[in-house]
């Protein structure tokens, strides 16, 4: 019980931010909370947020673990494009669905392995190491699709993007399952603590006997794996692999989701649930802007303003100042009343 309470307090700022945004959107668009069953699945704006937020949520899972090791993975957007392209070209050249998925996930793991080896073995700074694949990856994806949007009609693959399970769209089921699995893996074992140890002080962890290279590589592999699943979803959603645009700038949204979730970019303590909430906060802003009917010229400004607001609320300086004022208020109140 106290464990749960602790967990709740950790996620409280994110929940409050999400509630405020959803409240604001429902003022701008009254039918926002309406849910109905259509074609055997839940249908409504809230479901849209969960569904459209799937790629960023998946990326945020991997990104959280990487950032906890004091790293960063800039290549996830490009890996999405590569994996979408691989999935589309595999399915159109006649591979079965399981083979296609296995191949695609394998490519994602390979991408993660590449990043991990650059960071852990060759000791290149993560931001530079992953920048390589971020730049090259889109080129690789374009090579796979020959520069065109590669469309496919395989019902099985399309199901991953727009099918539904338990009345929920498939992408939602996938990202929630992935989130729970990874959270259990890192929290029910010592893995999470070891990752945090590496993030806080890599040298000390190595000296203490933690095999840091393996952990670091595993973190980047997980990130590549998550990116490959996100890539499959993005491609399946539009029934085609768009090498130019799939996952474009999503690495930044994923990093933002982790930051909104309160995980420090300096590594160390992390929370996957908080990052997932961060991803949903970002998507709520996106969907809210679309629903509210503002002219598109304002989209980015509104998004930036809301995010600055959330980050300011979370900043340790401001929280310290607020605590200081509430304390000094409490101290001056009796004095004031005396003066009167």
């Amino acid at each position, binding site marked *: 019980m106290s464990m749960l309470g602790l967990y709740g307090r950790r996620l409280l700022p994110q929940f409050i931010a999400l509630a405020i945004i959803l409240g604001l959107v429902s003022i701008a*668009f009254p*039918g926002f909370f309406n849910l109905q069953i*259509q*074609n055997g699945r839940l*249908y*409504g*704006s809230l479901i*849209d947020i969960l569904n*459209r937020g799937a790629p960023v949520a998946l990326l945020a899972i991997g990104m959280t673990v990487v950032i906890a090791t004091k790293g960063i993975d800039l290549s996830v957007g490009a890996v999405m494009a590569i994996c979408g392209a691989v999935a589309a070209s595999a399915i159109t050249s006649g591979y079965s669905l399981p083979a296609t998925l296995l191949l695609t996930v394998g490519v994602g793991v390979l991408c993660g392995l590449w990043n991990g080896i650059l960071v852990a073995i060759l000791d290149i700074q993560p931001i530079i190491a992953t920048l390589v694949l971020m730049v090259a990856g889109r080129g690789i994806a374009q090579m796979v699709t*020959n*520069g*065109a*949007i590669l*469309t496919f009609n395989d019902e099985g693959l399309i199901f991953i993007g*727009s099918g539904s399970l338990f009345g929920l769209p498939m992408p939602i089921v996938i990202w929630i399952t992935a989130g729970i699995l990874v959270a259990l893996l890192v929290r029910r074992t010592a893995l999470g603590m070891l990752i945090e140890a590496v993030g806080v002080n890599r040298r000390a962890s190595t000296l203490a006997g933690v095999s840091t290279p393996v952990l670091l590589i595993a973190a980047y592999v997980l990130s590549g794996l998550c990116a490959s699943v996100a890539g499959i979803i*993005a491609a399946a*959603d*539009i*029934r*085609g692999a*768009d090498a*130019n*645009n*799939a996952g474009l700038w999503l690495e930044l949204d994923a990093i933002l989701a982790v930051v909104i979730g309160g995980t420090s970019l300096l590594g160390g303590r992390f929370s996957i649930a908080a990052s997932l909430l961060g991803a949903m906060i970002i998507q709520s802003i*996106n*969907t809210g802007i*679309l*629903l509210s*009917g503002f*002219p*598109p*010229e304002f*989209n980015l400004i509104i998004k930036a303003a809301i995010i600055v607001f959330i980050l300011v609320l979370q900043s340790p300086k401001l929280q310290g100042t607020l605590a200081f004022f509430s304390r000094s208020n409490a101290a001056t109140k009796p004095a004031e009343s005396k003066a009167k």
Partner: protein
Amino acid sequence: MKFVKALSCATVLAGCVFSSVSAADMTVGFSQIGSESGWRAAETTVTKQEAEKRGIDLKFADAQQKQENQIKALRSFIAQGVDAIFVAPVVATGWDEVLGEAKDAEIPVILLDRTVDADKSLYMTAVTSDLVHEGNVAGKWLVDTTAGKPCNVVELQGTTGSSPAIDRKKGFEEALKGHDNLKIVRSQTGDFTRTKGKEVMESFLKAENGGKNICALYAHNDDMAVGAIQAIKEAGLKPGTDILVVSIDAVPDIFQAMAAGEANATVELTPNMAGPAFDALAAFKKDGKEPPKWIQTESKLYTQADEPQKVYEAKKGLGY
């Protein structure tokens, strides 16, 4: 009599020989931007085809989105002494010097698809489409199709601030002017991509009573329309009947949607910018006729009546 006949035959023959010789002898350098989009790839393919059809030797240089590569390519074309240079300029500025060099070497330069901010005397002509006109054609189609019935239109704009987005919006709105039955109820950017087109259309459908208030969709490019069509289907509506779909570009995939009855019309942004350019060049080489400074390509309207399946097959191989 015989003599006259022979003479006329000879002149005709000479004419034939001459014109064919002048075309076959011609070497044209083409500096392409790169292959950032399917349309660009198709333009490259069509340009090569058009050159081959006319027996012109085409020297092709891919600039990979860099102006310095284009300037290098132009200088090398000048050094090789080609008969003409085609450029699809990646940016509008910074061309004065190299175009001046081409002019000094008396090599005519023709701009394809985009124009430059340089003195008009520095190039022979520019072959481009009229973006405003494209939006206008799409709007006219909708005006004619709805024929006075009230119709709420939702618009998927291109990337905010890009010239196709601004001009295609402007042209469409001009066409709708004076037709009060047509009203643009929602307009958002879909960044020219399928994913965003689908996502934005989903929000339009939610915001307009599950799509029951929407009678037509106008998308600034086909890719957004293809994404939106899927959103409409997933909302339980029939694209093409419940919601009319009109877009611009005429890429192969929209013809597949039209063949399936899910899209209604598209306005072509032709990848054949080189054809009119070669024609203008041939006329210039033949009798020195200077073409106008701007050659507008045709913005052809395709509807479901134009055998979309056939057009799809024809366009599929162009590299879109």
